[in-house]
């Protein structure tokens, strides 16, 4: 466990010693504001809440989170530092977890920096802060599950651009799995329960219920299962790629 935290600290420091962190945070916060105001109509809705921000969040994350996750393993493999890291007394699981945790903390910091919007709605009106808290939890879980997918894809390649594009595509499929776009591909041949399984994998369905203020244990289980499965797959790929 200690090695995980050592890796996590190193990764976090790497975010902030390179321009990556600042560029990401500035763009994330600015785009959050912009989308909330222009597309979400934060003011026009005439309601003191943050629904407009949180309804755009899955779409912002769709391309911003793969940008954070793409470097996790692809960069290490490309620069050869993977060999340095994996010949230190570190288990693959500890390395995968440490890197994931750092990325998640980083995404959390960026999300927390949207707090001026929260201050604004509190100043202008009287929002339900319980719902806003739940929404932040939902946003964090969404970021974690996107990151676990992005990290897994990053372990498959040494090319960060491929990691980004494929990562975003896989996340998009998971987002869309409750919509006809994906479901119609299954309806023709798959049994009903499989269609329902696919439908239940949708990030949006689980996210929407949390953002409405209902933190259901099933939604938590869903997100942590997704994270667990992809971290496990990440471990397998890192081990397997070394053996090849």
């Amino acid at each position, binding site marked *: 466990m200690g090695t995980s935290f050592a890796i996590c600290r*190193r990764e976090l420091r790497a975010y902030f010693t390179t321009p990556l962190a600042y560029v990401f945070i500035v763009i994330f916060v600015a785009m959050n504001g912009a989308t909330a105001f222009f597309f979400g109509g934060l003011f026009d809705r005439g309601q003191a809440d943050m629904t407009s921000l949180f309804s755009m969040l899955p779409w912002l994350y769709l391309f911003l989170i793969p940008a954070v996750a793409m470097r996790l393993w692809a960069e290490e493999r490309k620069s050869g530092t993977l060999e340095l890291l994996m010949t230190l007394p570190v288990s693959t699981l500890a390395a995968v977890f440490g890197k994931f945790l750092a990325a998640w903390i980083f995404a959390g910091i960026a999300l927390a920096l949207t707090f001026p919007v929260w201050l604004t709605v509190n100043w202008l009106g009287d929002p339900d802060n319980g719902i806003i808290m739940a929404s932040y939890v939902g946003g964090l879980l969404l970021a974690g599950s996107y990151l676990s997918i992005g990290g897994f894809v990053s372990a498959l390649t040494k090319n960060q651009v491929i990691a980004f594009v494929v990562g975003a595509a896989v996340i998009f499929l998971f987002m869309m799995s409750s919509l006809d776009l994906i479901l119609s591909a299954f309806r023709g041949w798959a049994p009903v329960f499989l269609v329902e399984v696919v439908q239940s994998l949708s990030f949006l369905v689980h996210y929407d219920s949390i953002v409405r203020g209902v933190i259901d244990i099933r939604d938590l289980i869903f997100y942590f299962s997704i994270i667990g499965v992809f971290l496990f797959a990440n471990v397998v790929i890192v081990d397997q790629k070394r053996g090849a």
Partner: protein
Amino acid sequence: MSGLLEVNGLTKRFGEFTAVDGIDFSVGRGEVLGFLGPNGAGKTTAMRMVTGYLPPTAGTATVAGFDVRTQAIEVKRRVGYLPEGAPLYDDMTPSELLAFVSDVRGISGAARKQAIERSAERINIGHVMHQPIGTLSKGYKRRVGIAQAILHDPDVLILDEPTDGLDPNQKHEVRNLINEMATDKVIVISTHILEEVDVVCTRAIVIAAGKIVADGTPQELEARSSYHNAVSLRAAALPASLTGKLESLSGVAKIEAGSAENGQSTITIFPVGGAAILDPVSACLKEAGVAAEEIHVERGRLDEVFRNVTRTA
């Protein structure tokens, strides 16, 4: 048998290609093993298996009795490793990198500070400790790589081309460092610089096409050279009859004329089967009235041995 580092039947196949083909060796404390071979012979792959980076296809390596296949973490605790090309995190400073490696190796508090200072001092990188690694020269990067390998004072030190990219002074320093540390450790270095073998290694293993083709002390390897105990001499004037006289001596295999410079000629007299021929040769020279400017007995040439054993494999 009970070396600190044991390698048994270590094999690595990548698909159809066999990179390392059943190598065995055992190294004990105090030995500095030079791992030689042409590029692509399997040196790096073998080192990657011993350090637990690549899983072997067959066979195994053990460090202090821990099997790298099943107890990789224990092996990694006891091994310091400089990977080929010294890959490092470019965005960190040497000081941060060494702190990170200490954390992962479970060295903390005062011990951490001491370990970092000691290894930075030993490898002489004190004055670049706070510059990003990405901005350092190749020689410094290599030394930072060595610093992280020796940080925890490991029992087994494995260095893949430690002097590659260093200038002659830096090479000298690194070789001194290896000699200093050699007494209580196993040190394995891969290199293609043959002079290094003479200077730092107590033993050399030559591998070619994944197999061990020679294993012995540098002296033993030199003895396999046709130059072993050959006599080279340089003189202002060599009478034409001398060659014939020398050739007729018993124990002389052949004579090769070397280059002529500044009016002086050189010749090399090769013995049969590496026998000592200095006495009969110098007697013969005296008889012929030749005044040699320089005369010396060759120890043997590693590069010739290297070419012979790696070409036939």
